């Protein structure tokens, strides 16, 4: 009798314990992805519309109109509605996609990861179910040489052997689900310490092979000469900027002429070269509940001292690219040191602002421009026919980009999926 009582108490304690364990943020269950919302200020991805009502049917935006539609309308309270943000340079694993979405990043471009993750996420892309994760497009494995950059992280990466290998490598990436091809290239003239790289000839062969198969080919570079080589070789995009010198007139005109886009990943570089933005904008803000895990990568530092002018080079190049009319895209390189999934996109945008880029163009660089650059048809804009992935902000982000830090609401596939905290 006594034994049974004790057992019962233990069992109850265990079950009660299960209920005490933390649960994820409450998600919508009853809410529908068919609704009307307004009046809201709409930044549609490129420009601000007058106060509007947005109509969503089954997760797709079907209309934006100045007058309230008939029927029930969710009060928009003159808040700001923006397309869900797109982070153009991340590396997804673990719960990265959930974390991104919680911060209003509804789509990410993965620049190298295990193809199995991409294949899994690819299947979810076209559906309109409730989702707690950002949508992912990705490169899968990157294209690199034996012992090249990308092979050092412990993931077994197939490598490229010679220019004649290019077609095979590209076909292999396409077969394993890559949405575009990412190659890693460092010019032989680069003086800093770097991993062995494919040759310029091999890079040209990869770009040619990619273009023959109608693939976008983007290139990882981290110095001026490599950037120039990659652009001249026909890269569609550069996934990093550089800081060894300020972008030359020649480089700018080559980029401009070919309409290459650049994802400067300023946040990652800033952590290495200056290291104040993340602290000021995120870590020192007592209002933010930053998880231990995010804190870890945000406070991680790359060891080494760099001359002060490297950071000014980085910013000046960004300014010059902007002034030359080059397409710049917002990408954080999360979760590398000084970044964290979801948290860092605002840091990247503030560094764009530091380079003198107006807020409106920064917002475009984090939404419509990225979707456009990667050929994503139904995201990055608030317009009829687009997916209802958007964020609602209390304040005007055009006046203050930090308004993006705590979206009032995040909508994914038309479902309100809440906010972090």
């Amino acid at each position, binding site marked *: 009798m006594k034994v049974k009582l004790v057992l019962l108490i233990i069992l109850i304690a*265990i079950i009660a314990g299960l209920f005490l*364990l933390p649960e*994820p943020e409450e998600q919508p269950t009853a809410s529908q992805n068919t609704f009307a919302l307004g009046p809201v200020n709409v930044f549609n991805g490129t420009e601000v519309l007058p106060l509007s009502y947005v109509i969503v049917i089954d997760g797709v935006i079907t209309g934006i109109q100045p007058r309230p539609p008939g029927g029930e309308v969710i009060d928009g309270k003159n808040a700001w509605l923006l397309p869900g943000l797109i982070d153009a340079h991340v590396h997804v694993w673990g719960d990265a996609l959930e974390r991104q979405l919680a911060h209003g990043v509804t789509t990410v471009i993965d620049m190298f990861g*295990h193809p199995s993750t991409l294949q*899994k996420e690819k299947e979810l892309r076209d559906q309109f179910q409730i989702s707690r994760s950002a949508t992912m497009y990705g490169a899968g494995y990157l294209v690199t040489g034996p012992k090249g950059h990308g092979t050092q992280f412990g*993931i*077994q990466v197939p490598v490229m052997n010679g220019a004649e290998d290019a077609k095979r490598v590209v076909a292999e990436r396409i077969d394993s689900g890559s949405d575009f091809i990412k190659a890693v290239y460092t010019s032989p003239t680069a003086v800093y310490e770097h991993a062995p790289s494919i040759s310029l000839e091999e890079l040209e062969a990869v770009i040619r092979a990619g273009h023959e198969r109608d693939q976008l080919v983007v290139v990882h570079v981290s110095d001026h000469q490599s950037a120039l080589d990659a652009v001249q070789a026909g890269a569609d995009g550069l996934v990093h900027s550089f800081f060894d010198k300020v972008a030359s007139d020649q480089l700018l005109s080559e980029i401009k002429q070919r309409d290459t886009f650049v994802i400067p990943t300023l946040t990652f570089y800033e952590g290495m070269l200056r290291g104040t933005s993340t602290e000021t904008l995120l870590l020192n803000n007592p209002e933010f509940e930053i998880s231990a*895990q995010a804190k870890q990568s945000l406070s991680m530092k790359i060891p080494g001292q760099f001359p002060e002018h490297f950071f000014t080079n980085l910013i000046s190049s960004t300014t010059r690219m902007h002034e030359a009319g080059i397409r710049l895209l917002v990408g954080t390189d999360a*979760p590398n040191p000084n970044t964290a999934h979801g948290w860092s996109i605002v840091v990247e945008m503030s560094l764009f602002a530091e380079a003198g880029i107006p807020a409106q163009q920064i917002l475009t660089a984090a939404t419509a421009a990225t979707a456009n650059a990667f050929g994503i048809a139904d995201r990055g804009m608030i317009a009829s026919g687009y997916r209802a992935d958007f964020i609602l902000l209390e304040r005007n982000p055009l006046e203050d980009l930090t308004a993006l830090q705590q979206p009032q609401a995040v909508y994914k596939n038309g479902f309100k999926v809440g906010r972090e905290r």
Partner: protein
Amino acid sequence: MFAIHQAEAKYDLLSLWRTPGFYLPAILFPVVFYYFFGVVFSFSSGAAPQMLVAYSCFGVIGPALFNFSVAVASDRVHGWMALKRLSPMPLSAYMLAKYVSSTVFAVVILALLFTLSAVVADVNLWTWQWASLALILLAGTLPFALLGLLLGLVCSDKSVPGVVNLIYLPMAFLSGLWVPFTILPDYVQRIAEFLPTYHLSQLAFKIIDADQGQPVWLHLGYLVAFSLVLGLLIRWRFSLLQK
């Protein structure tokens, strides 16, 4: 008749309770291991729930393997098992008692791991996920208890801890329970598919949607077949011991 089962289970637990030298390390080992390699020096930052599931698998398998193998080997070598079998107590009571003890261990280890993960690694799961994880892992200890039993019937009490470690630790590593498959060479996963730890962990990973995408029946089928084969081997071994 069940009174005997109950009494035996109770006294088996009591004897464990009186040997903190055994239960403290047995419980703390997986917890400390998880804290070091799943949280602090995680090979997989950004995958806190995955690490929890992997280390929970690792954690519950340990007591099943060790409690059975070490206790059975020692009872057998010292003649205690022969004495018990001569007594009117059914063998099932002896087995059940051992299984109850290892399950209690597993529950305690899971409780510690779950709490630790929630507190220091920010793991948030739905209550149904926490609950099904616990149930799958607890039920999944059975094949490992059988493996422990077989080892206990085969090895001497001196050799058994070493043999168990030699099976347990590599098996856990190769099944991706310490570091995720994504950072292991591809052939490791092909080896893993032959291991029970892999199939149990894949079932658990399904709860957080982080498995390798193979069907449930494959994993279940493997574990059932594995248990049946062990069952047969154990019967054969018992029949040998009886002679």
